[in-house]
């Protein structure tokens, strides 16, 4: 790198470098803090107990499996809602909608993403839960399904934005080539454009998963917070307890340094690792695809 020619350039370069590195430093510090507070749980509670099916911390039952399955069920349900609607909306906005409609739709989708989650939770308990109870004839509407529907709604804007950007980035030549070969519009979209944008779509879905698994307020209000093992197919119609809601509800009253405190941080550590894994997977997909494209284009 050339030596900066005067003071101000050197200072600006240093400031930008610091900002860039500081993000990595913050993440490492957070990770270190979680490790320091959460790892003692592995020594204080037997592993077989920690991964048992009973979460009743005031009686010293620290089994986190119900919380893991709860988070999993709600996230999978959310993605089942967000992926079809999200990708469909993105395809519509990028490929099919006329320009003026596109200018209106894109900000509206962003608006959906800007809704405060506590407001959605409120709508969930007042409107969605009673509706689900009467419509599906359930004992109560406060279930994983209610959480999934709302979380899907929260994840849709993330999926739409990134997928739409990925579709935009597909070279126009691909579409023109396909149309010249006699493909219909739908065949072009489904078999040429969308596969070409697959790495971006996958990233979008991964980020949607990350968003859904970390959401706290909505699940605290509408999923019922009952620590049941959500492993059967109809578990989506029963109340569940997610990891995020557990931390939010119980962190306030734990005594600093107790086993309970360490277990809650352990749950936070697991959440952090899951988010990390999801994001690393998403970015590695992007890098892999890029390398292949560079090889093809020479």
């Amino acid at each position, binding site marked *: 790198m050339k030596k900066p020619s005067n003071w101000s350039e050197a200072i600006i370069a240093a400031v930008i470098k610091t900002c860039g590195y500081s993000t990595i430093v913050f993440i490492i510090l957070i990770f270190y803090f979680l490790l320091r507070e959460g790892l003692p749980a592995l020594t204080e509670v037997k592993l077989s107990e920690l991964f048992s099916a009973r979460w009743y911390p005031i009686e010293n039952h620290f089994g986190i499996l119900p919380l893991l399955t709860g988070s999993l069920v709600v996230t999978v349900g959310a993605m089942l809602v967000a992926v079809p609607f999200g990708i469909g909306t993105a395809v519509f906005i990028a490929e099919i909608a006329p320009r003026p409609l596109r200018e209106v739709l894109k900000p509206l989708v962003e608006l959906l993403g800007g809704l405060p989650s506590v407001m959605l939770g409120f709508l969930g308990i*007042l409107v969605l839960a*009673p509706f689900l109870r009467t419509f599906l004839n359930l*004992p*109560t509407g406060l279930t994983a399904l209610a959480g999934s529907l709302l979380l899907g709604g929260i994840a849709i804007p993330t999926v739409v934005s990134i997928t739409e950007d990925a579709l935009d980035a597909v070279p126009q030549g691909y579409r023109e080539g396909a149309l010249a070969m006699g493909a219909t519009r739908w065949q072009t979209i489904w078999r040429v454009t969308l596969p070409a944008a697959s790495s971006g779509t996958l990233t979008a879905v991964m980020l949607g998963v990350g968003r859904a698994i970390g959401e706290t307020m909505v699940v605290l*209000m509408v999923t019922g*917070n009952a620590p049941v093992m959500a492993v059967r197919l109809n578990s989506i119609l029963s*109340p569940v307890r997610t990891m995020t809601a557990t931390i939010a*509800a119980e962190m306030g*009253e734990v005594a600093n340094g107790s086993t309970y405190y360490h277990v809650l941080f352990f749950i936070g550590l697991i959440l952090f690792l899951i988010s990390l894994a999801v994001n690393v997977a998403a970015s590695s997909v992007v890098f892999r695809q890029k390398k292949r494209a560079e090889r093809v284009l020479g």
Partner: protein
Amino acid sequence: MRRLVIFFFCLTFLASCSPAFPATSRTNPSAYIQDKGSDTMVNLALAWAARYQNEYSQVSLSVTGGGSGTGIAALLNKTVDIANASRAMTPDEQKLAQARGIQPVEVVVCRDAITVIVNPSNPVSQLTLQQVSDIYSGKINNWRDVGGDTRPIVRLSREINSGTYADFLQMVIRLGRSQDTTLFSTDTLLLPSSESIINEIRQNPNAIGYDGLGYVPSDLKVIALARDAEGPYVRPTIQTVNDDTYPLARDLYMYTAGQPKGAVKDYLDWILSPEAQAIVTDLGFVPVSK
């Protein structure tokens, strides 16, 4: 010119570092009291604080909720002066207090009742404590087993940091037996606030829940409870709570670290005065009987 602008900005920055003048006509408060804990008591504590600050403007009070457990933990962490609790301190908490050199002092500030509530369309109007215990521990799962319609029972509860939760576990599910280890059934819904419980019961005929007397709105159905199958079924009112005929009467406490002194002592003395106890009645709780 540039130097002048920089000088002006520095001056503004330094000026903003000083404390702002309060907008109210209150003179600089000479005492700050931090009050934290029970969500059951938070409305009452806020009403008391508002009235006290009106009369004694030199004292500044801050009140927060979070649950009895949270309040007691904060007292033991020495971050608050008064902890509101709807349950007594547990032996574990007492031990932790001794270990930190704190001698907690308990004051009974009013009385309350845990009421069991159901949807107005539910035909059941009375239950024994044993029946409620069996419902909540998972032994009874359908309303027809206690004389109602054929509907699944949906159990609602507060979260575990709630003093009402702890009292309910001890007084109802374990029927006051200290060696009992019965727990809430795993599919009990643990809702984050009294309002969510009331909301769900209002529109779900399968639901049963519990809450403090002051929180139950008039449109929900209150269950009359009996200590045993022969005993009288009593509804919770101020009278039945005061003469202990209602089985789930309980005291509400304020804890301080050591004997209260100065502004905190004055505040606690005022709370036990007739004026403050009149506020207790207004909010639906039961005043301390002299």
